[in-house]
């Protein structure tokens, strides 16, 4: 697909993979310190150390966000109305 040269760099289709690559690089960079930094357990008395597992905050953030998006999507089935719903 040939894209419009007048379009901003950000919107050109051929740049989309580059944008994803940048995001992937940033994510990898964020995971890098996992090899050096030791996380301490927040609740050692409770016998859980899941918060010290590799990249805990990364996967926990991703999974909970996915769950919230899915939850919103499901609730949306019941709650969504046309935005003129209350107009008379």
């Amino acid at each position, binding site marked *: 697909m040939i894209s419009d040269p007048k379009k901003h760099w950000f919107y050109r289709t051929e740049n989309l993979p580059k944008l994803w690559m940048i995001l992937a690089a940033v994510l990898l960079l964020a995971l890098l*310190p996992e090899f050096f930094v030791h*996380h301490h357990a927040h609740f050692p008395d409770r016998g*859980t150390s899941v918060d010290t597992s590799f990249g805990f905050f990364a996967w*926990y953030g*991703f999974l*909970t966000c996915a769950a*919230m998006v899915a939850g919103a999507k499901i609730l949306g089935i019941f709650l*969504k109305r046309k935005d003129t719903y209350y107009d008379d």
Partner: protein
Amino acid sequence: MTDIVFPPSLILIIGAFILPLVRGAVRRGVILALPVLALMAVWSLPVGTQVAIEFLDYRIAPVHATASGRLFAIIFCLMAFAGGVYAMGRARLTELVAAYVYAGSAVGVTFSGDLITLFVFWEIMALGSTLVIWAGGGERAWKASFRYLLIHLLGGVILMAGIVWRVSMTGTADFGPMLPDNPANILILIGFLVNAGAPPLSAWIPDAYPEASPSGMVFLSAFTTKTAVFALLVGFPGAEVLIWIGLYMVFYGIIYALLENDMRRILAYSIVNQVGFMVCAIGIGTELALNGAAAHAFAHIIYKALLLMSAGSVLYMTGKRKCTDLGGLFQSMPVTAINGIVGALAISAFPFTSGFVSKSLETAAAADQGLMLVWFLLMAASAGVFLHAGIKFPWFVFFQKDSGLRPDDPPLGMRLSMWFFSFLCIAIGLYPDSLYSILPFETEYQPYTAGHLVSQSQLLLFSGFAFFALLPMMKRSLTISLDFDWFYRRFGRILADEFTIRSSHALERMERQARMRVEGFVRRLYRHHGPHGILARTWPSGGMVLWVTVMLAGMVIAAAVL
């Protein structure tokens, strides 16, 4: 204290009424001077200053300077100043006067040493904020301001009932820590929670605020909910129920904001979310947690106002408010976009922003208390903040698809106020001690540890990844989401309609029966007395004689018997 103390709140409240009397440069000068004077007055009252007067049988303390009250008063004055700059020359006079009265009464609440003073300022605040919404103009704003007023009058009545009950029970009106263990205190707690946007009435925030003008919503976002946070912080620290109410608000805000299409309604839901964090921390109730709630309120007012200034600038320049109509604005509104992004990073608690150094106090407090479930939920919620406000707002407004709109950045005053608050967001993030030094309790907390920096960055960046990975699921649609306000906007109407139909049936039947009776009566009257009626005949005199004879006979018999 023997010195004359002038309440800082009155500088703003009385000063607001100078605005209509002056014009042009003088009015602009007054707009800038009033919050600065109020701020100086706040600073001039050291913690512990107290002015008390006897009123009826109670001790009233209209000026009672406490550490937490001062913190809120300072940010309220800063907010009034930045809001004034943002609104200057564009907002209607009604809005400016109302906003300054509103800000002044919020400052009044923070200096209240007793419940009676608090209640008076609480109600002035309700009136001022209603007028700010109403000044947005148009029928939608008028209707929304009316719904808003009804909710706040309801909250006010509940609060008043609680205060009267408590005062009559304890004999004192002093405002200090209470326990929600008797009906009077529970009513007071409910009164505070209504203003905080707690369930089930949270819907008043996204219903009313986005109908205000661009500057109106900037003012509104700061005062009502944060005075409620202040009142809860002083009145109910450590009330466990607040932990769960707060967590509900946190997730309510995220879910509804994810479903929302109107950019300023997204940010309104986000207010509920943020206040939820503070309410939860107040419920935890340790010194660290209360410091966290206060610091978060302080930081939140700045970055939420900044986000709304950015959104307000877009609305002001394009006249559009829906994500479906917007996108690609970073190309022609770079200043608005940059400031919006700074606000978005701060609300998401990115390292080196005010959100990072304030919100982490709250999560640390949950961990310190061994509240494992609360901590895990707060962590998920922190990720969710980035999702619903931190990325969603800037992405759909400034990036997304190219809407083809090419508006310029807004006028100078609006740009300056945004830069000012962006500066504060980052300055507080870089020098957290500037904020920590005015917190209610002394703190040794150190936000910048390697572990914390790494974990927070991972949490946020991977929630950002979730946003883009799930972008197809978040396609904007021209919809709103039903909320509790459905009950008073639709269900109430349906009930009323049903009542009207049924009652009009009953009324009709009653009318018909009454008419039938009257008609029957008239018919009977006509039959007997009408031209052909038996009683209307001309009676012969013979008949008369007969009747007299009968009567006489009757009397004779009666006399004989007796």
